[in-house]
């Protein structure tokens, strides 16, 4: 397929077009224009499919990439280069991301037509949804950091507007501002990173950054004392922390659940939060060169473990899912940290799929449970229970996804999480600092916790007796409806591990011939920086230029004897796999004990770990810390200090002082004017009067007298000039 502009651009332009149409004429259209949004995203899904088929299935070469560029603006003056190019960068990772985003988005659009059916601002929802999807797709396709940053901000805006969709709820407004602000902190760091890169490399296109890295143009450079690479790596990772709600800045994601569930599904589960991880994946070579992989790993594992622990005691179904998202994102970041490049990307894809499915299922559950008193939807798990009979399809989807996320073999979760944990273990063993073993240990514990709280949620909602009779009776039996159940089931279909690993168990033990070899792991590998030095950019519009893509043969040393690391790696993986399976089932068993067979009494546990429990409820006091201390004491204090300075020092001395000086100058000037200028004026007056008197008598009025004067003057002149 030829990668001309009009084969790639429609992916972005369809949702953008839908956004524009809906935004302006949406409300007048039939069904408020939802069919336009769905159709648009489906069209871009088809295009993405076409690219996916070409890149992954046809080319199937690890090094294939397409890089089409056009100059956005060129303000370079003299030898100062200030030229920003925009363009597309498509390689296997982009193709998969495109497919995942468009696929999930299409299904979510479909589901939201069901979920938002009765809503007053029905059309408006789709407007923001389309805008968001186009921004996300553009980010994935873009070839340089600046366009990534632009669409990054656009997504931030869409998430802000969608979180604050139910404007009437005051809490929703606060949550949207909170989300926007916290991500903004991350964005500032991200922008700093971009500027630093531009300052050193002179261009911010990914290809240029890689070639700069290869040529080592970063060495020796330093920004504010810190070595350039580490500074840039930290800043870029700061962006990821902000966007993917990592350790310090994860407070906004739980509150983001105020928005409608499909939006949470799409934005706060599958795509937007994944963007942070996608950025780190893209900039992985910079991170490695920056030497902050350990730091990343630590941040990842802390986030994962912290979020998992908080999820244990959550009662709201969406809160549980929110914290599980944070924890899984923590896993991905840890994967990057420990060097599991491919597994972390795979986990990103698989997590996007089953988390979206979980959220949609939760959405359909919430949608069907009505509370007569508040006329709102019930989200509290204690009021649910026993919905299995009422909502069989939702239950089925929920079950598959919960199995996937808790890492049960045969499911996609296990495939990706196990590889991450394996690499983490290997990382722990190989790492010079022994205490780094904590990373795999916490990783495995978090896996267990995940399994426990997911199944806790499952049992509380679908199993056991219905705790709230009235709600339960009112929930009508669910019959298969295309918009509600089809997306769920399709997504749950994709949670099967075989889809990604090509082997039944996911460990490559039992290969299934039809799917072919491990397509995922072979295609997406860490970008080798050296290859990028000689690849030039191809101008966007002049399609007659053949794209340059080398298909360097990835020399896979087949069955040569295993080097020492690989031996250790293999050993680590086998241990990792076994332990993770054990822990997963352990978690499930505990959940079963506690909630189905009531062997364990949750109340007793709570009382045992009361202080721990309270902390969990307060979400480790992060919110408290931010509101009270960081802002209350820090910012307000700083603000007051500034105000004081402005009032007392600046106004008093600078403004008023100037007034005094002005007065002095004025006095001097007036004196000068009086004494000197006036004197001169009078002088000229007297001179003129003097001349007037003397010259007047000359005019005798007799012509001959004038002749005489004339003649004398002339002759005098003649004589003088001659002598």
């Amino acid at each position, binding site marked *: 397929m030829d990668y001309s502009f009009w084969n790639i651009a429609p992916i972005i332009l369809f949702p953008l077009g839908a956004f524009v149409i809906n935004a302006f004429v949406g409300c007048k259209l039939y069904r408020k224009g939802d069919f336009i949004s769905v159709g648009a995203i489906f069209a871009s899904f088809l295009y993405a499919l076409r690219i996916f088929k070409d890149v992954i299935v046809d080319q199937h070469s690890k090094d294939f990439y397409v890089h089409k560029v056009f100059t956005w603006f060129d303000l370079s003056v003299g030898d100062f280069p200030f030229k920003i190019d925009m363009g597309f960068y498509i390689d296997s990772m982009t193709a998969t991301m495109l497919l995942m985003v468009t696929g999930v988005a299409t299904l979510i659009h479909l589901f939201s037509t069901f979920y938002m059916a009765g809503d007053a601002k029905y059309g408006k929802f789709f407007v923001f949804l389309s805008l968001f999807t186009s921004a996300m797709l553009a980010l994935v396709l873009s070839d340089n950091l600046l366009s990534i940053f632009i669409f990054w901000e656009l997504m931030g805006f869409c998430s802000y507007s969608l979180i604050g969709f139910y404007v009437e709820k005051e809490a929703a407004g606060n949550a949207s501002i909170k989300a926007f602000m916290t991500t903004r902190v991350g964005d500032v760091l991200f922008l700093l990173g971009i500027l630093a890169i531009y300052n050193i490399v002179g261009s911010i296109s990914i290809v240029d950054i890689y070639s700069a890295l290869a040529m080592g143009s970063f060495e020796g450079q330093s920004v504010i004392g810190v070595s350039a690479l580490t500074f840039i790596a930290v800043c870029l990772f700061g962006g990821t922390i902000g966007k993917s709600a990592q350790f310090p800045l994860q407070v906004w994601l739980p509150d983001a659940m105020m928005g409608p569930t499909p939006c949470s599904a799409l934005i706060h589960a599958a795509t937007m939060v994944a963007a942070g991880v996608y950025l780190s994946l893209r900039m992985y070579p910079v991170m490695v060169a920056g030497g902050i992989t350990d730091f990343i790993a630590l941040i990842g594992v802390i986030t994962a473990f912290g979020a998992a622990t908080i999820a244990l005691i959550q009662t709201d179904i969406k809160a549980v899912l929110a914290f599980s998202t944070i924890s899984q994102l923590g896993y991905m970041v840890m994967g990057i940290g420990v060097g599991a490049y491919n597994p972390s990307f795979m986990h990103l894809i698989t997590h996007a799929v089953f988390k979206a499915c979980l959220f949609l299922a939760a959405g359909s559950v919430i949608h069907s449970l009505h509370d007569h008193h508040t006329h709102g939807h019930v989200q509290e798990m204690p009021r649910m229970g026993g919905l299995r009979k009422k909502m069989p399809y939702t239950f089925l989807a929920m079950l598959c996804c919960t199995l996937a996320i808790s890492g049960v073999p045969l499911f996609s979760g296990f495939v990706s999480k196990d590889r991450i944990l394996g690499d983490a273990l290997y990382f722990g063993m190989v790492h010079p600092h022994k205490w780094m073993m904590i990373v795999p240990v916490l990783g495995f514990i978090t896996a267990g916790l995940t399994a426990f709280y997911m199944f806790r949620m499952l049992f509380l909602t679908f199993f056991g007796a219905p705790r709230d009779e009235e709600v339960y009776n009112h929930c009508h039996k669910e019959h298969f409806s295309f918009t509600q159940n089809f997306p769920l089931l399709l997504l749950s279909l994709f949670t099967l591990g075989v889809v990604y690993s090509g082997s039944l168990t996911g460990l490559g033990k039992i290969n299934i011939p039809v799917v072919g070899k491990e397509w995922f792991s072979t295609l997406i590998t860490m970008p080798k920086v050296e290859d990028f030095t000689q690849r030039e950019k191809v101008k966007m519009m002049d399609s007659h230029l053949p794209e340059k893509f080398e298909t360097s043969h990835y020399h896979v040393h087949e069955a040569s004897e295993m080097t020492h690391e690989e031996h250790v790696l293999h050993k680590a993986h086998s241990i990792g796999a076994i332990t993770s399976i054990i822990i997963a089932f352990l978690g499930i068993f505990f959940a079963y004990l506690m909630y189905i067979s009531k062997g364990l009494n949750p109340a007793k546990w709570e009382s045992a770990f009361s202080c721990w429990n309270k902390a969990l409820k307060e979400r480790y006091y992060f919110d408290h810390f931010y509101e009270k201390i960081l802002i209350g004491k820090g910012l307000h204090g700083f603000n007051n200090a500034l105000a004081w300075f402005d009032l007392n020092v600046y106004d008093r001395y600078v403004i008023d002082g100037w007034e005094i000086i002005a007065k002095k100058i004025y006095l001097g000037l007036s004196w000068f004017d009086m004494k000197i200028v006036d004197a001169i004026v009078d002088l000229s007056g007297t001179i003129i009067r003097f001349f007037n008197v003397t010259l007047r008598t000359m005019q*005798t009025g007799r012509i*001959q007298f004038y002749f005489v004067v004339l003649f004398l003057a002339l002759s005098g002149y003649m*004589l003088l000039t*001659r002598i």
Partner: protein
Amino acid sequence: MLVVAIEKERTFEKVAIVSFLTILFILSALLMLVSCLALLLTKNIMHACTFLLAALLGVAGLYLTLHADTLAVTQVLVYVGGVVILMLFAVVLTGGQDQESITKEKFPHLAPLFGSKSTFLKAFLVSMIFFVAAASLLRLGEKEIVHVVAVNYAPTIQSLGQLLMTDYLFAFELVSVLLLGALIGAALIARPMKK
């Protein structure tokens, strides 16, 4: 009035011509000087006009000595035929010639310079001395020790006509405009006052 024959092609011997010319020069110079003197002394305007006539004829004679025959004839035609008669008409039209004597001088001591005949003679002599002194002072004489060459007496009217029509065409046209202006202007100014 002496009639001098100026041959067109043939040139007399140098001697003849030169002597002719000197005679002519002396006579016309004499005529001019005498008329100038008379002009200075006469009180009667009519006499002044006749003396002016004589002076101008003298100048015409001088032109002849300078081989400017066209100029001499033009001089006679324009001045004698035109200007002097005009002057005479003007004199008659402005009340004859008895205005001269009264001088309304405010500065009596300057009167001699502007009034009586004797001062004129004195003034004239003084100026002559002044001229001689100035000439010697400025060494006018030496500058052009010009040898008197017997220039063949080519008639000038032909070449003058050509010059007028080629190099000085602009001046020629300008003069025509000037004359037109003078013509109309004079006629207009001298119209009798409508009392």
